[in-house]
Structures are given as C-alpha cells and as structure tokens.
C-alpha cells in the first residue's frame, strides 16, 4: 500500500481554491452524515445513503432521485478512513491539475470525472443494488489527468515495508500501478459475477479514464499552446 504525501509546487495558482471547495463540501456533507448518525442512529445514516447514494439498479428502474444521486453520492462517505484517504489523494493530486485548468474548470472537470465513473458503473454493473458513495470516482479522474499532465513529477510517498519509508516516486509509476491494480480487481469481479470487494472499482476505472480523456477540454489555453510552458511543468 502506498500513500502519496506531496507532489511539489504549483505555477499558476497561488492557492487551490477549487480543490479546497471540494474538500470543504465533502467534510460538511460528512458532518451532516455524522449528525444523522448521532440524532437518528444507524438507521438514519443508512437511509441517507440509500436515498442519496448512486444505485444503478434504482436508476435503471427510474425510481428515487436517479441522476441527482450521481452528484450527491460524490460527496458522501462511509467512514472516517474513507473520507480521509480520499481527501488526502485529492489534496496531493488536485492542486497540480487545478493549476493547469483554473479553479472553475477544475470543479467542472472533477464533477465530470465523477459522472464518468458513475456512467461506467451503471453500464458494467447495472444490477448493483448496493448504493455507491464516495468521491473516489472523481478523484480517480484527477489522478488520470495527473498521469497525463505530470507523468515524471516525483511524488513523496509513504510506503510500509516493515517500516515506513518516504521515497520520491515518479507519478507515472504510482498511477499506472494503481490503475492496473484496479483493472485486475475489475477482471476478478467480472469473473466472479458480482462485486464482493465493497469497492467501487468501476467508478474508479471510469473516473480515471474519463479524466484521462476529458482533461484536454479543460486545460488553460497557454498550457495547450506553449510547449515550453507544458515542459516547464513536466520537468519539475
């Protein structure tokens, strides 16, 4: 298991406003979930997840909030560990992608990645009845974009090999390893016929490749039109 810690400095944005907004909204929604847990108990918590989580089966049967749940599920989490690691990944990779898109476009891109993850989930696992929640589909899109935009950037990573070590690994190695792991897991799920892992693998894969494909439409003009400008980021 690896945990990315930092990915270096930005060039265009002094402060990653878009990433911060996403983090804040996620935290607020999680606090709301915690409030439900405390006030209504586990029933209230579960009901909220069933009502606002993304449930492909219910969407296909045209019941519940359907498309709206794509957006609501993107900001809900199943536990402290879930939200912590999601937001950690977002905080490491998000600002550097936002740097090359701008805050508003980054927000749109993030949501589109989440929608792409939900779409693949719907297409490949239409009978999934358990609601999917979490920002991981959208964050996977950010990671896909990062692979395209900053492939050689070194990421300070925490790895446990008996003892914790902090190597600076190239982004391409980390991200390709991560997506391969997801694809292999997806293959196993397909072979098994049902998702026994409890992880939204299709949302991750859909988000990652969605991000890889769609980031082009959100980049700043100067990033596209100035090779030197792009190389300046890549070389860091």
């Amino acid at each position, binding site marked *: 298991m690896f945990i990315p810690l930092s990915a270096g400095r930005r060039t265009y944005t002094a402060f990653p406003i878009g990433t911060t907004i996403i983090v804040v909204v996620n935290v607020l929604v999680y606090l709301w979930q915690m409030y439900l847990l405390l006030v209504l108990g586990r029933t209230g918590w579960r009901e909220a997840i069933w009502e606002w989580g993304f449930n492909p089966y219910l*969407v296909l049967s045209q019941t519940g909030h*359907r498309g709206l749940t794509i957006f609501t599920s993107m900001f809900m989490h199943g536990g402290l560990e879930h939200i912590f690691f999601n937001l950690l990944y977002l905080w490491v990779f998000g600002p550097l992608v936002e740097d090359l898109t701008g805050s508003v476009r980054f927000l749109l891109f993030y949501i589109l990645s989440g929608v792409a993850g939900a779409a693949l989930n719907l297409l490949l696992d239409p009978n999934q009845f358990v609601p999917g929640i979490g920002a991981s589909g959208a964050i996977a899109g950010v990671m896909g974009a990062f692979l395209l935009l900053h492939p050689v950037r070194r990421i300070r990573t925490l790895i446990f090999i008996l003892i914790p070590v902090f190597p600076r690994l190239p982004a391409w190695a980390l991200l390709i390893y991560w997506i391969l792991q997801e694809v292999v897991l997806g293959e196993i799920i397909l072979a098994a016929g049902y998702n026994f892992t409890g992880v939204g693998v299709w949302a991750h894969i859909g988000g990652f490749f969605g991000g890889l494909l769609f980031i082009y439409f959100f980049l700043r003009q100067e990033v596209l*039109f100035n090779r030197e*400008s792009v190389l300046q980021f890549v070389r860091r």
Partner: protein
Amino acid sequence: MSLSPRNSRDALTFARELVQQGIAASKSGDKRRARELLTQAVQVDPQNEQAWLWLSDTMTDAVFRRICLEKVLAINPASVVARRGLEALAERPAVSEPPAIPWPPSARAPQEPDPPPASPPDVDHASIPNLLRPSNASPAPPPIGSTCLWCGAHVSSKIVLMCPACDHPLEFECPDCGESVPLEIRECPHCGRVMGDFTRQRPAYLSDLGEAYRAGGLPDKALPVYLYLSEMQPQSAPFHVYLSELYDQLEQSEQSAAEAERAVELDPLNPAALYRLGHWYVKSGQHDKAGELAARLTRLQNRSPRLTLLLGDMEYERREYPVALHAYLQVGKAKVFDEEFDAPTRATIHYRLGEMYRLAEDLQSALKSYQACRDTQADLYEVRDAQHWVDTLRPPLPPQASRSHMETLRAMIGPLLLVWLTGAVTIGFRFDHLTFLGGLGLVGALVGCYACASAAYTPLTVEWREVLGEAGLTRPLPRRIALLAGGGLLLLSLGLVLFGM
C-alpha cells in the same frame, strides 16, 4: 514687450538683446521706444552699464539722467562718458519735467524725437549716446513709488527696483502678462489683472501672487514671494510646504528638505509636508529617518491614498516588503486610485507589487500585478520589464489560440459532456426514454456552453463579429451578458436534464 525671460540663465541674453534694440531705436530717433526697451533691460540686468548709459540719453529729465549716469559710474567708475555727462549736467541748472519712465509705457502718447544734441568732444557719435544735450524744461509731478511700501523708507527714483533700506522689491511681474507692476498699483495696467491692495492686505496680495506664479509654472518667481510670506508669518506650515515644493522644482533638494522639515516641525501631521519630507528621505537614501517617518505615517488615522503610497514607497526602499505590500494594496483598493494617480505612478505601484509577489513566490499574483503595470502603458522601464515578466510567467498565446473557432469547441465540450452524460445516466442510457423537457435541456446546454465558451475563450469568433460588430465579445458588457446568460442557460438545462427526464 510681452517677451520675458523664464529663468535667470536667459536673463542676460535677453537684456543684451533689449539693449541692442534700444540703441537702435535711440539712433533712429524713437526715444520713447528706446526708453521702454532700455528700462526693461535695466530691470532684467541692473548691472548692464551700456543700458544705463543709453537710458540716460533717452531721459528728458535732468534728475533721471543724473541717476542713470551715477549708476554707470557705480558699475564702471572709469567711464569717461558718464563722468563728462555728469559734469555737463552740473554746469546747467536742474530743471524737472514729467517722469521720464512711462508707466505704463504703452499707455503714454508717443513723443516727438528729441532735437539732435550737441556732441561732447572726443566722443564717438555712433557708439555712445549724447549726454550733453539740454533737458526740456517743464513742470513735473512727484515721481511714482517714492516710498517703499515694505518699510516706509524714501526711495529717490522708480529706477531703483529694490528698496535700498530693506532690500525688498518695489514691483512684481504680473503673472498674466509678465510686465512689471509697482506695488502701489492694484491692477496691471497692461492686461488688467487685479493685483490686490499691497498696502492694506499684504499677505493676501502676496499669497495671490505666489499662487498665480505657481499655477503659471514660474517657481523662480514664486519662490521670493513665499519667502516674504514665510518671513511675515514664520509659523505657517503651508508656506514652508510651498517653499519646499518650489525648491524642489528648482532642483535645490536640500533647501526643499529643510523647508519640509520646518513644516513638519510646525505641523507634525501636515500631510503635504510629510509627503515631501518622506520623498526626500527616500530619494536621498536616509533609511533611518524614513523608518521614523514611516512609523509616524503608520500611526496616522485616515491616511490619504498619497500618504499611504508614500508609506509604501518608504518601506519598499527600506526593503520592508510585507509592510510595503500592505500599503500598496491599500492604495490599489482606494476608490480614487485611477483619478488620484497618473499612469507612471500606477505603473510603479503595480510593478513593485509584482516584484514583491515574485520574491514571495506568489507567481499568480505577481503575474496579475505585472499585467496591470503593463496595461498602464506608461513610458517607463518598469513597464517594459513588466512585459518581460508577463511573457516569462505566462508566455503569449499564438494568434490562432484567441481566434480559432476550434478553441470555442474545445472549451464548450467539457461542460456539454457533463450535462449530456448526466442526462444519459439519468435515463440509464435508454434514449427512448428521452422526454421533451429532457431534450430541451440537452439543446439548451449546447447553446449555453457555446455562449460561455465564446465569451470566456474566443470573443472574436466570426459568429460573434457578425452579431456584435468588429469588437465581437471583447467589450466588457456584452461579454458579461453572454457569460451570465450562457451560465444561466447551462444551469437551467442541467435542471431540465435531472428533473425533466
């Protein structure tokens, strides 16, 4: 004559020209004209021997002729011509006649040329005036300006421009026409300008005069006026501020600073004095004193934007960048920023902000500041350097980037995909479930995305040029309208897609 030397360097040349013209007029027999010219010459250059000599020739009054010749002897005691002229005058009885110097010169009727005078022996007729002719005999009123209005001392002749007792001027140049106007005259006889009542309202007279000189860009003329004023009212800080400003304009920096210091002593919170003093400290590199003044300015409540700018300048020069940055940002936020400061000042503020942001590695803010500096279009080194930094931090786009319709398409595809993919998921990719409202949402998203992308990315696309003219969407108002309308339509479309399918 409306001509007047604007600075002391031209004065001597100007006087020489007047003398030459006066001599020519005298030789041609136009004594009145000669007298006007030579009178001006001695006003400009009281030490011009030739001017006094020829002026004496134009005088019909023996007393004035004697005064002129005495002046010549005072300047050049070896002047034979003047000595002989005086001897000739002494041999004749003194007869007074109307004042020889006309006041105003142009207001007097032209006089007939004097009869040809008898030449003294051994004198060259062509080069020197004839001083031995008899003067016309006619009764005369008392001469003008015989009493100094400053100190009350008796002044024997109007020819004397400064009171010999108190060394104050007996006349000032009219700020409008440049002609000399004696203190006792309330209106300029040449142009009609109201000069005021020197006798009764001396400070008002001088204040008005000084203000007019300053407004007319005549610091060398205004300076003595304010010196007299500060002599009369030594505790008045504003006069010292004016003096500081005038010295500064005359490039006498140390006197300027001394006056500013004096003004601050008298009025420690006088903004103009603090401003001038602060600039002196900055210019002269007196960082310790600048620091003290900056501390005083920091404590000052309700600082004007100019004083805040001064604070920023001083702290910037002292390399106290956080304080300087704060001060400059305050100046930039002032409502009157554009009106209060000229383009070079604004350029310098933005440039310094850019430099400080760059040092702090806040490159985006640095870029914005450099861009703002460049946009002032002031003719400064800072603006050229700002352009360099803008190009370094954000290289310029090739022309096709800002004009290509493909860029609009690229920009609109992202949000459009978002709405359309959401719609597809909402109906579970079963497009036979598409409703009218849902379809409307999909089409609306297309239009909204196009409007937003055009306004944000490619304001000069052909389509918008056709609709809005050559400026396309570059004008702020249509651009904002397009952004708002497009964004609104996009949100509406998303709502239709989510709830209308």
